[in-house]
């Protein structure tokens, strides 16, 4: 019994800067690897179990994703008894993710939890006495993956999917009612309306693809806005976290006038740090635009680092900023603790009752690690631990969303080609099923139930 498809997954739990392995197993694994892996020196005949140094290059866009070590393992002397490739990468989760994505694009399928082990067993690599252990692995991996998936569904994501699904369901129920009960007095579904609905739902799916839970964070970084009035040390903090002089720091208030974005990696979570212009009333036009921009970015930020100056009392400007971040996920950072303390900490706690407060000195590099820990913990609290399972769960969701989007696009093409409704319905149903994979609802009786709920049918 041999599965023909090639599978891929990220295989090591990752930490900051840690090496991660992308594994590919199956007939196409060598092919796929050769398409994305550019060895330092040309390989004539691939040697099995040999480490090749080189780069992973996105074959479409042509840019280098990561510097990697790649090994090829020829069947049958491999873990799964199939051809296998292991790509050891350095560039952290974002790179691993990207490499995995490339492999999937080139025809690999995302491995199910425990699937490498399952193949190893089914292909006779693992002996009989270990079958129970294999089952335990599969069971526990599956369950963990389920927990991950459901955690990622928190935060309105599953509601959104469900609402898209129910819109698709209504379209399908109408089409099906027309098909199965052509003589009942149900008005024919209006193609123009169906088309409008499909375009609308496709837009919603696109939106979701951009914003899927931790998957999105993994892809684009947790967007973290440094906010505060002028001269409190925002740019200094950015530099301290990056460990380089990225932003200009002066003692002139209003130094930063535009947005500066930089990425750092906190224990495997990519964080996009955004330094902004200090918030104050100003007549300087350029600075004013900067302030407006900061406010706009605030809307989209997932986390705010609200900076206070320890050496000064709380000002009215600070208070107005407190108001702005009231509903935001915020860590309050008291900077300049190396200076004599003037800030009324008690008052601050009163004004920001539900926000964590961290004390640092950007100048002296004090408290920066604690701040990073706090950021990490807050994220984990919000979306669950970030490990290979989270990433895979995110990957799965994204793939399902993209497939759903494709299906709806096909439905629209078919509509333009004047295909009959039952053909168009094939694509709508496929989209609906793909979305169901994300939420775990794939009961096909739903359509039939919807027909009877929505339409008065029967003789």
């Amino acid at each position, binding site marked *: 019994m041999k599965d023909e498809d090639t599978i891929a997954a990220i295989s090591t739990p990752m930490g900051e800067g840690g090496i991660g392995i992308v594994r590919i197993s199956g007939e196409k694994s060598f092919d796929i690897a050769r398409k994305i892996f550019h060895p330092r020196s040309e390989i004539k005949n691939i040697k099995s179990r040999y480490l090749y140094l080189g780069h992973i290059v996105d074959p479409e866009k042509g840019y280098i994703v990561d510097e990697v070590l790649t090994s090829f393992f020829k069947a049958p002397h491999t873990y799964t008894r199939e051809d296998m490739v292991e790509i050891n990468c350095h560039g952290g989760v974002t790179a691993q993710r990207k490499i995995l994505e490339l492999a999937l694009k080139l025809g690999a399928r995302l491995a*199910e939890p425990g699937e490498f082990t399952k193949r190893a067993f089914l292909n006779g690599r693992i002996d009989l006495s270990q079958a129970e252990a294999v089952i335990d692995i599969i069971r526990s991996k599956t369950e963990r993956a389920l927990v991950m998936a459901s955690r990622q569904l928190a935060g309105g994501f599953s509601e959104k999917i469900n609402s898209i699904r129910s819109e698709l369901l209504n379209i399908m129920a109408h089409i099906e009612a027309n098909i199965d009960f052509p003589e009942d*007095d149900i008005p024919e579904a209006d193609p123009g309306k169906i088309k409008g609905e499909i375009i609308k739902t496709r837009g919603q799916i696109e939106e979701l693809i951009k914003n899927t839970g931790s998957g999105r964070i993994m892809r684009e970084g947790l967007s973290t806005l440094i906010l505060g009035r002028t001269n409190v040390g925002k740019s200094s903090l950015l530099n301290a976290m990056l460990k380089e002089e990225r932003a200009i720091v002066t003692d002139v208030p209003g130094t930063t006038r535009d947005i500066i974005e930089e990425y750092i990696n906190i224990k495997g979570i990519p964080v996009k740090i955004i330094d902004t212009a200090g918030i104050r009333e100003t007549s300087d036009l350029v600075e004013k635009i900067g302030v407006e921009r900061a406010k706009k970015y605030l809307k989209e930020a997932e986390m705010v680092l609200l900076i206070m100056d320890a050496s000064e009392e709380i000002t009215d400007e600070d208070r107005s900023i407190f108001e702005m971040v009231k509903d935001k996920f915020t860590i309050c950072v008291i900077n300049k603790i190396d200076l004599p303390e003037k800030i009324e900490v008690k008052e601050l706690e009163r004004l920001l009752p539900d926000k964590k407060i961290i004390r640092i000195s950007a100048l002296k590099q004090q408290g920066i690690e604690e701040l990073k820990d706090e950021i990490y913990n807050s994220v984990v609290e919000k979306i669950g631990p970030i490990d290979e399972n989270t990433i895979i769960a995110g990957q799965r969701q994204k793939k399902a969303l993209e497939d759903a989007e494709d299906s709806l696009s096909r439905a629209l093409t078919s509509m333009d080609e004047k295909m009959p409704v*039952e053909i168009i319905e094939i694509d709508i149903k496929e989209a609906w099923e793909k979305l169901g994979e994300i939420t775990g609802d794939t009961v096909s009786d739903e359509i039939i139930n919807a027909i009877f709920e929505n339409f*008065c049918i029967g003789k």
Partner: protein
Amino acid sequence: MEYTAGYYDVAVVGAGHAGCEAALAAARMGMNTVVFAINLDSIALMPCNPSIGGPAKGHLVREIDALGGEMGINTDKTFIQIRMLNTGKGPAVRALRAQADKKAYQFSMKYTLERQQNLDIVQEEVVRIMEEGGKVKGVVTRTGGIFYSKAVILTTGVYLRGRIIIGDVNYSGGPNGLFPASQLSESLKDLGFELGRFKTGTPPRVHKHSIDFSKMIEQPGDEVIIPFSYTSENIKREQVSCWLTYTNKNTHDIIMENLYRAPLYTGDIRGVGPRYCPSIEVKVVNFREKPSHQIFIEPEGLNTNEMYIQGMSTSLPADVQIRMLRTIKGMENARIMRYGYAIEYDYVIPTQLSLSLETRKIKGLYMAGQINGTSGYEEAAAQGLIAGINAALMIKDREPVILKRSDAYIGVLIDDLITKGITEPYRMLTSRAEYRLLLRHDNADLRLTEIGHEVGLISDDRYKKTLEKKKMIEKEIERLKSIKITPTEENNRILEELGTAPINTPFTLEGLLRRPEMDYEKIKALDKKRPELPPEVIEQVEIMVSYDGYIRRQIEQVESFKKLENKKIPNDMNYDMVYGLRTEARERLKKVMPCSIGQASRISGVNPADITILLIYLEQQKRKKAHG
């Protein structure tokens, strides 16, 4: 006193739509067969609407026909109106629907049974199934006759402990005033079968002369008659019309005022009814905002004035029935000949069967039709045919015919019953078939004639014709693919005349036919040397070319579906020995006893991890065997 009444290969209990197909199939496959009915006048009785076919149901009839069953032929002999439905939609959902002359249908079927070799027809109520050592031995009738047989097929329909309900009146009975079967349920329980209870209903029948058709909308049949059976040719027949009218506020008011007397709402009816055949009281209550409901008046036959009032199924009291009917336009003076009623009956929970329709408990015992929880003539006939075939094959020591979900609606029907189980009377719908585009009514012959031939129900001659048709289709598609149309001025002028875009690179005829606005007839202008082909071949060519992309996608899906279907699970699988299965999955698997990994994966409560574990277990067993 009991006596030995005879020895048979196959005994079929019931001569409804399931029983007739089962008996005919078994007898035609050379089995010495006996078929029972409580009343021989109930053979092939249609206790509800006088029509056969419609979406999904019409597909079933075509499939029955392709496998060598009788329903299509018998309908063609006796229909008084026929129409193709869904003509405005695509080929996958087009379907035939016929109005049959009920009595003619019955007598024609009865006469077919009577003329069938190897088939005895007996009016008797079967009261007991005989079993020994897990194998069926035969049946015992109410008058004490012992009929020994190697296989027994139960097709008892709505008769098991049937109870009729009309308003506050209820009594034990079968449909149409026939006797129910009151003892067989006990025998089934004694054998360890789990039974459930469903209900269904039927509308009143009204005298034609009391209806004013001038106030209604006429619904004639199709001008061009396309028959059900692939063997019927060129039917020319005078057709009769149906009539359309509507309920109104007065009708609904009378229903609402009398709801307290409706057994569906007083709790008198406990059996679960079908959602697709709701009674008028349920429709009015559930869709209160709807000001009117359609009512079709359908003739029950040519030699009768009884008219079937489709849309008015009800179990309201008789006095309410007549009052509400008379509120309807054209029915002001309606005279009811038969009142509407509801009927409750026992069915056997179908997850106790295997996909061959044999019970898992007792070898040689098969069940088909409404006894399995389905509803509808076509659903019954389809199962009857399969049960008849499989009983005969079992006796011949051959593998049963199990149609896959990708082979036929019949496959979907049986798999749904056995794998998923049911919570209401099951009716076939096209939306239940995931490979709907492949399972068209127009290609049932191409899909199934081979199987019918293999079991011996289709003649060599008919099979040969189907093979020829297949070949003609393939050849014609090849030919269209091979002919290139060049972008000459002349060709582009023709194309423009045909209302399609001109070309600037060479195009095959197939490529042109693929264009949504083109059809086979149109491209003739560019196809001078085309062969003379029968219309059914042209139809296939057009469908296969126009929907090629989608058809190919479904074929791919079917391929991967089949991979799992072909991973077999042994019959004697002991799920208690499988390490790592969740309890819920284990229980569900034990209940259904799936025969393949594919079937197992469709059982609700069995998740992908359970399937992996099953795969590993099976592999483990295989290796153990290999190592001795």
